[in-house]
């Protein structure tokens, strides 16, 4: 045992080889990994932290003759943890008792990030503060008096720009000399009332802890379950009962404002701490990207902005231009007028058997239907959609959208994090269903999977539908309102039927920027390439199956079986074909609908009912298989049945509503 930083703790000789341990902690994106790589070089292992899916990197380094193990902890915002990553980071501090904790923060966000430094100091951990990204801070005119900050914090403070290798030697030196340091960590006082609470709770704890009792008392008052379990384990039942009773008593007295008060008090401590330490240029120029970012996350401006983006990006660019102009050119002119008549003549000239001719150039032929759908209809739509998607992605808009919808999504039992699979679902629902596995709770994953299979149309489907419905006045509005209404109703119902807490969500916002043409091109090209490679064989296979169905009359029987359902929806029997196509792939079904409309088989009401039903219709085969893989047979089957009932039920009701009111007639 040795004495360091005013606290008795086990230091050095953590293992047989006398290797010291340093943990790098801090918010995400502050340069921890760059520092980790600079300290460790190539000798790195990455493994999941036991019992979690969170990866932790560890590496070895020799610093001034001393061997060190360097641990790159997951990003954390506070010692009071919320996410699994934060829990792992704190577990490392608690269980691996590092000899030095290097807190890396971003100089440009000093005021916000210092709150965690204060928590680490009051936890009596051996902290070194690295004020990183100093180069960028200096570039925008920020001035930081590091000596004064060191004096006020009572710990070593180093200015660095690790990406430019600035400050690395000072960090190494500070680590090596840490325990010889004369620095004494100082105490940051809260209000008299809170101090009294902390003293009372801490005074009841008898065991030895890695974190200070003052910090533990604060965490207990914040209802931290893991810390409660730790205190219970170390104090024993009797000792813990006293602590828990006191915590309950205080929590009851301060039930309305404890978290807020603590946060405000910490903010005030930081404000006083940086007085004279930190100065920014008198006239802070608010850049256009900051202005736009603020507009995007505030509901009052964010929602209109979202509608503007959807109108110009989805409706005008993907729907009108991609699915209208380009499809007319490719499918209408190139395929229907030039390529298909030519290839039909060629195949019929080479192949004498009518049944084989039918396979390649018949009604459901591989070339005349499969290739035409893939190249003539789907390709231009997904191309324009992916251009729009990659453009928006490169601006940094998506994380702002996540923040904007967080409050609404919470009502559906999800957090803003669910925006990731929802947004990806507009590209392809199958791949988005896989991404739902990244959501925090099982409840959230099931709700997201359900909403994806029900109310999120994929890129090709949305493109075709926008193009078709925009030709009938009011049809697009009816379709849009129906989708939105069902999304909301099913989301609210699902949140009620699957009770539980919506997980907390917050994230660091990357800056908004003008998209780079090269990025947009690369991302669009890559997405289109895999999409095309993915769909082409499936479209060919679907054509073969349809051909088989046709020559065996099985397809005809399926159409006949669906005819009463189509009649209930007020649709002609030919529409059943689009639904059968839709089960193979959603985009294939949408292309089928496009064909029906061009043949003049559907009026505005029927087109709208068919579009709504097809959008809601059961997930395609691929999505269903992924649902089964991710959520299991029971959940996948239940979602499949539920979605089918909702699709046809909604189609029926919508048809009745349109007939009764005369809208769209």
């Amino acid at each position, binding site marked *: 045992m040795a004495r360091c930083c005013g606290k008795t703790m086990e230091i050095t000789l953590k293992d047989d080889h006398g290797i010291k341990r340093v943990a790098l902690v801090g918010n995400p994106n502050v340069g921890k990994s760059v520092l980790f790589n600079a300290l460790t070089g190539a000798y790195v292992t*990455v493994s999941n932290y036991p019992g979690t899916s969170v990866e932790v990197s560890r590496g070895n380094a020799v610093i001034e003759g001393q061997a060190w193990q360097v641990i790159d902890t997951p990003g954390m915002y506070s010692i009071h943890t919320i996410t699994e990553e934060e829990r792992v980071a704190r577990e490392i501090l608690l269980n691996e008792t590092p000899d030095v904790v290097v807190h890396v923060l971003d100089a440009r966000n000093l005021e916000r990030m210092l709150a965690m430094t204060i928590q680490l100091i009051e936890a009596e951990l051996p902290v070194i503060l690295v004020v990183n990204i100093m180069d960028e801070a200096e570039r925008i005119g920020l001035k930081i008096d590091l000596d004064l900050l060191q004096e006020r914090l009572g710990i070593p403070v180093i200015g660095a720009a690790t990406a430019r290798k600035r400050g690395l030697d000072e960090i190494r030196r500070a680590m090596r000399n840490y325990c010889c340091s004369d620095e004494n960590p100082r105490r940051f006082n809260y209000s008299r009332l809170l101090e009294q609470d902390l003293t009372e709770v801490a005074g009841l704890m008898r065991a030895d802890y890695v974190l200070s009792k003052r910090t533990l008392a604060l965490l207990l008052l914040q209802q931290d379950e893991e810390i409660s379990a730790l205190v219970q384990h170390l104090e024993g039942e009797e000792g813990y009962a006293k602590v828990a009773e006191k915590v309950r008593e205080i929590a009851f007295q301060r039930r309305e404002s404890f978290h807020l008060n603590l946060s405000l008090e910490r903010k005030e401590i930081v404000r006083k701490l940086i007085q004279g330490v930190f100065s920014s240029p008198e006239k802070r120029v608010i850049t256009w990207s900051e202005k736009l970012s603020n507009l995007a996350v505030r509901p009052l401006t964010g929602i209109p902005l979202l509608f503007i983006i959807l109108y110009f990006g989805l409706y005008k660019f993907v729907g009108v231009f991609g699915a209208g102009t380009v499809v007319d050119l490719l499918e209408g002119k190139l395929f229907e007028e030039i390529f298909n008549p030519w290839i039909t003549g060629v195949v019929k000239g080479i192949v004498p058997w009518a049944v084989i001719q039918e396979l390649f150039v018949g009604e459901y032929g591989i070339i005349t239907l499969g290739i035409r759908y893939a190249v003539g209809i789907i390709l231009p739509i997904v191309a324009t959609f992916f251009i729009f998607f990659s453009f928006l*992605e490169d601006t940094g808009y*998506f994380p702002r959208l996540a923040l904007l919808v967080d409050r609404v999504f919470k009502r559906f039992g999800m957090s803003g994090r669910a925006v990731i699979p929802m947004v990806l679902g507009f590209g392809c629902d199958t791949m988005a269903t896989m*991404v739902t596995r990244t959501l925090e709770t099982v409840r959230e994953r099931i709700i997201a999977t359900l909403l994806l299979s029900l109310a999120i149309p994929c890129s090709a489907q949305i493109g075709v539908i926008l193009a078709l419905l925009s030709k009938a006045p009011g049809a697009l509005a009816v379709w849009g309102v129906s989708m939105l209404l069902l999304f909301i109703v099913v989301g609210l119902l699902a949140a009620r039927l699957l009770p539980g807490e919506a997980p907390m969500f917050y994230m660091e916002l*990357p*800056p908004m920027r003008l998209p780079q043409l090269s990025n947009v091109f690369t991302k669009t090209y890559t997405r289109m*390439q895999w999409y095309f*490679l*993915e769909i082409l064989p499936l479209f060919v296979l679907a054509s073969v199956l349809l051909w088989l169905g046709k020559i065996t009359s099985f397809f005809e029987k399926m159409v006949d079986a669906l005819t009463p359902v189509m009649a209930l929806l007020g649709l002609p029997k030919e529409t059943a074909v689009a639904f059968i196509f839709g089960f193979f792939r959603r985009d294939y079904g949408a292309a089928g609908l496009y064909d029906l409309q061009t043949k003049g088989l559907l009026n505005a009401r029927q087109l709208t009912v068919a579009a709504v039903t097809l959008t809601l219709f059961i997930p395609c085969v691929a999505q269903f298989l992924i649902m089964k893989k991710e959520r299991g047979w029971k959940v996948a089957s239940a979602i499949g049945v539920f979605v089918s009932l909702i699709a046809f039920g909604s189609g029926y009701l919508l048809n009745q509503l349109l007939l009764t009111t005369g809208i769209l007639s």
Partner: protein
Amino acid sequence: MKCGFCGHEFEESDGKQGCGGCSSGCHSIHCPRCNYKNPLEPKFLKKIKGLWQEKQKKQ
């Protein structure tokens, strides 16, 4: 590479790949921080960029 969603910069080797969902092979990398699915840059584009960067360095 840089995550298209959260802006996190990471090495391709640090991202998660190959969940087996796509029949035509994996073309994406999941961000280790937010799990967003980022498209993987095709090899030929990487080569072109590499050649361009080399040319820039020489100049």
